[in-house]
């Protein structure tokens, strides 16, 4: 299969490219950028006039709900949503049922994902057995089975000794440890940011210090153990400053935020909108603005979708009882573009937050376009509008705070391994 993508604006943050150039693909790989190779006869031409051609997006957190929660969503539906969102590589957290704590489960997930022949799935293994915070998993074995990193998903890891041990053990094999910073005792009963809105609505709060206290412990132990740490989905302005300081000191730490947190604050809860029941909670406007600044300045490395398909039954409940989470795969690009436009971030820099930087954290050779490398890419219309509606979403999860919003940035075509895996219906 030979594909010629012509007339597009090619943006590849990893190679600092932003120019109009044609792309030539053969045998699943990029064979040339710009110049047509001698004797190249395309089987397929894609006209990308007025469109952006860029590496497929890399999402550091997408719950596919397999194994264990197939009634919520299936691998098929969510992988379909990923490519519809231009995402060609995604990491999935270990909080499946059972959790990804043994090689067999990881191999099965990899195998299932591969047979669908869509986006690449990178499982994140559990740090402890059953995510119960007690016994270490066989991390080296899990790595061999395909885990790219290890985490504790949203489950508490209270015991500082266990936290230190998992970091030490991971550091032994140079494995990356991905952690959410949230102190369990300070957040256990909370459902919203402890602030003005929670006070007004009478919702139990999660104070910002639940995050900073846990983050401070993680950073101290990272320094102590030398482990490679990625902090997942920070939410407060003070966390941004702590990460900035840690990076300045030369600590091997990276972090990400969810696309929802770039735009939303506690105010968006309004009168109990359970679509805004998210973990970490939406915090104050001041926090949100600090996250945006941190993202622009590069303190925050990546934006992830934090995709969590939740069915209506689990959302149509009083706020505190509603399950936290929102669908996100198909919103990742438009929400990043919205931020870029609002904060005047050059497109190439904005796209680096969902290509180059998360790819580096994932360390799996994806997220860039270069001769001889896999042709995983996304073609999107930066001016194309679409409306977020249950029927416009491929994911089985239909709940998002952005439901009903008009979004700019429409994925036209997604290629994985040189094959067109997604093409938008013409409208």
């Amino acid at each position: 299969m030979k594909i010629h993508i012509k007339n597009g604006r090619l943006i590849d943050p990893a190679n600092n490219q932003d120019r109009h150039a044609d792309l030539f693909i053969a045998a699943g790989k990029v064979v040339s950028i710009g110049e047509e190779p001698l004797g190249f006869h395309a089987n397929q031409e894609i006209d990308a006039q007025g469109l952006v051609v860029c590496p497929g997006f890399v999402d550091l957190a997408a719950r596919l709900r397999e194994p264990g929660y197939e009634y919520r969503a299936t691998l098929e539906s969510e992988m379909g949503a990923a490519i519809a969102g231009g995402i060609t590589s995604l990491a999935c957290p270990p909080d499946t049922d059972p959790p990804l704590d043994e090689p067999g489960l990881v191999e099965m997930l990899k195998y299932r994902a591969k047979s669908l022949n869509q986006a690449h799935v990178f499982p994140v293994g559990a740090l402890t057995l059953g995510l119960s915070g007690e016994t270490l998993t066989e991390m080296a074995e899990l790595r061999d089975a395909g885990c790219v990193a290890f985490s504790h998903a949203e489950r508490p890891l209270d015991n500082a000794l266990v936290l230190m041990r998992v970091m030490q053990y991971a550091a032994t094999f140079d494995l990356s440890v991905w952690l959410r910073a949230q102190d369990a005792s300070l957040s256990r009963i909370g459902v919203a940011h402890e602030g003005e809105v929670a006070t007004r609505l009478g919702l139990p709060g999660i104070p910002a210090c639940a995050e900073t206290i846990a983050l401070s412990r993680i950073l101290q132990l990272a320094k102590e153990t030398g482990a490679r740490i990625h902090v997942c989905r920070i939410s407060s302005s003070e966390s941004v400053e702590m990460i900035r300081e840690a990076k300045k000191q030369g600590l091997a730490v990276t972090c990400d935020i969810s696309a929802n947190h770039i735009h939303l604050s506690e105010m968006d809860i309004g009168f109990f909108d359970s679509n805004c029941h998210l973990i970490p909670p939406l915090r104050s406007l001041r926090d949100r603005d600090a996250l945006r600044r941190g993202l622009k300045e590069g303190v925050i490395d990546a934006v992830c979708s934090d995709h969590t398909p939740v069915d209506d039954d689990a959302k149509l409940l009083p706020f505190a009882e509603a399950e936290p989470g929102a669908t996100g795969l198909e919103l990742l690009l438009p929400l990043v573009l919205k931020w870029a436009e609002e904060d005047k971030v050059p497109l190439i820099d904005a796209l680096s937050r969902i290509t180059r930087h998360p790819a580096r954290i994932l360390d799996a050779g994806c997220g860039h376009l270069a001769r001889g490398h896999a042709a995983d890419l996304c073609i999107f219309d930066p001016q194309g509008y679409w409306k977020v509606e249950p029927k416009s979403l491929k994911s089985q999860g239909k709940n998002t705070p952005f439901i009903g919003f008009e979004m700019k940035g429409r994925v036209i075509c997604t290629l994985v391994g040189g094959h067109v895996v997604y093409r938008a219906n013409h409208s």
Partner: protein
Amino acid sequence: MQNNRQINKSGELQHLLTIEGLPVSMLHHILDTAESFVGVTEREVKKVPLLRGKAIFNLFFEPSTRTRTTFEIAAKRLSADVINLNISASSQSKGETLLDTVNNLSAMHADMFIVRHAQSGAAHLIARHVAPEIHVINAGDGRHAHPTQALLDMYTIRHFKRDFHELRVAIIGDVMHSRVARSQIHALTTLGVPEVRVIAPKTLLPKGVEHLGVHAYHDMSKGLKDVDVLLMLRLQNERMQGALLPSAQEYFKYYGLTPEKLALARPDAIVMHPGPMNRGIEIDSSVADGPQSVILPQVTFGIAVRMAVMSILAGS
């Protein structure tokens, strides 16, 4: 973002979910209407035919005999048919969701739901999903709101004190967990009370309570000074757990309303309590039964206020 949809397009009250956002004219309209109903409750026939044939469902997901009874009396005095449903946690855990329950009852041609639920926002959720001709009254949702209680408190204050613009009001006790306090604060600030205070130890005040327009005090001797109205809150026994308070004894010593502490307020100050009271914990019996207590009139006015709310809703 979901808004507060208790006012319909014609500016009428469609549901009563919270005091927050209600215009001051609406509050006075409810209180004025309640005044007419006070007369009804003093007659030989304590009943008017206003809501004849209407089906009002008392939907109590959290047990409360007292509040349920006052709504029931109010509905019956308006000649409505009242159906009481106590939906225990167990039937909920059988898999029927809150909205399943509500949909089932709507199919029985309910005209009004009176909802009590342990979760903040439950009444809003129901109001968003019922058919447009059904009205919802929030009879207490979690820590969020208890608008009819706040309205009857305002009625009581207006009855004894007249002008809201000259009052200093203190709310005393567990503000953190109190839906009553949140509704009282919105009502008092909307009606133009220039100074609303909350008095409690820091463990019982929610973060940023000042943003609601109140002044926070931690010391009764300062907080009660020159106060015209004292709104006591109920202290639940379980607050002694979870590291909120050391003991009932210490709480009573520092925050319980005794005659000595009451003497710090203005001599004509009135004392109110939403009930049921914990005598000897948040209030001393001699104050609860004393000359400055208006706790019993509150109960009487409560019925008239609920009649007013029901008839205003049913007529919109």
